[in-house]
């Protein structure tokens, strides 16, 4: 077992996917119930992380295993970074406008 492309630890795929699934559900629950806009954003990050774990897991499976899964997880991380930057900028703008960072105050579309 070497770190440089040698044989890898045979961690069971099911366990990894279960971890991803649970992490995803935690993130989902947080995104749906938390009041603070920042925590909602964080929860979304959590869901993205769960997806990343799945991607990295899957990169070792299949007929032709390759690094594509890892590259995709890198792309996801990049997009997540952009997302969080824009999201937080929006948060700041909204906070300036409404003096609040709570989701329930963003109700301009209310009847």
């Amino acid at each position: 077992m070497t770190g440089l492309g040698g044989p890898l630890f045979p961690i069971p795929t099911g366990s990894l996917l279960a971890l991803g699934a649970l992490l995803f559900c935690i993130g989902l629950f947080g995104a749906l119930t938390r009041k603070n806009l920042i925590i909602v954003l964080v929860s979304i990050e959590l869901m993205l992380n769960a997806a990343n774990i799945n991607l990295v897991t899957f990169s070792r499976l299949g007929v032709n295993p390759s690094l594509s899964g890892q590259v995709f997880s890198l792309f996801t991380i990049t997009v997540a970074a952009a997302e969080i930057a824009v999201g937080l900028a929006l948060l700041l703008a909204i906070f300036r406008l409404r003096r609040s960072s709570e989701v329930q105050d963003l109700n301009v579309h209310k009847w």
Partner: protein
Amino acid sequence: MNFVWNGPMIAFYVLALSVLGAGILMLSVRKVVYMALSIGGVFIGAAGIYILLGAEFVAVAQILIYVGAITILMMFAIMLTNHKAEEEPFRWTVRNATAAVGSVLLALVLLAVIRSTTWPVQSANLNLNGGNSNPVAIGLVMFKQYAFPFELVSLVLIVGLVGAVILAQERKEEE
């Protein structure tokens, strides 16, 4: 599923439990600052799991971007807005109950699906990196096979950056 009790497996379970624990902690603490800190635990744990999976570059990127940048960015955001904000205690409203039941159901369904599927066993001597170190291999793949998506992603970053600046800057007419 035969359970192998060796070092990497112990490490995996410890990491997995800590990731889930940090996630649950995030949902259970009240202060927003603590929430943001506990999410850092999730990110670090996930990075450990990447290392266990042989994705060292992804793990380093995870630590740099998520732990180093995003968590800190969030701390700044919290400080700039309402840093004393506290989450209200969880209440069993219809909405929250629906969300909880739905999430649990989804988790159960996913777990059931994962359990009922036969996953291929990883070959022990899989050579993903083609003899190179993992970052070298990723670099080769990224700049050969995924050159165009790479450029697109950089464009997304630029747009996100500019957009964030424009959104966050204070405007005269709002005063």
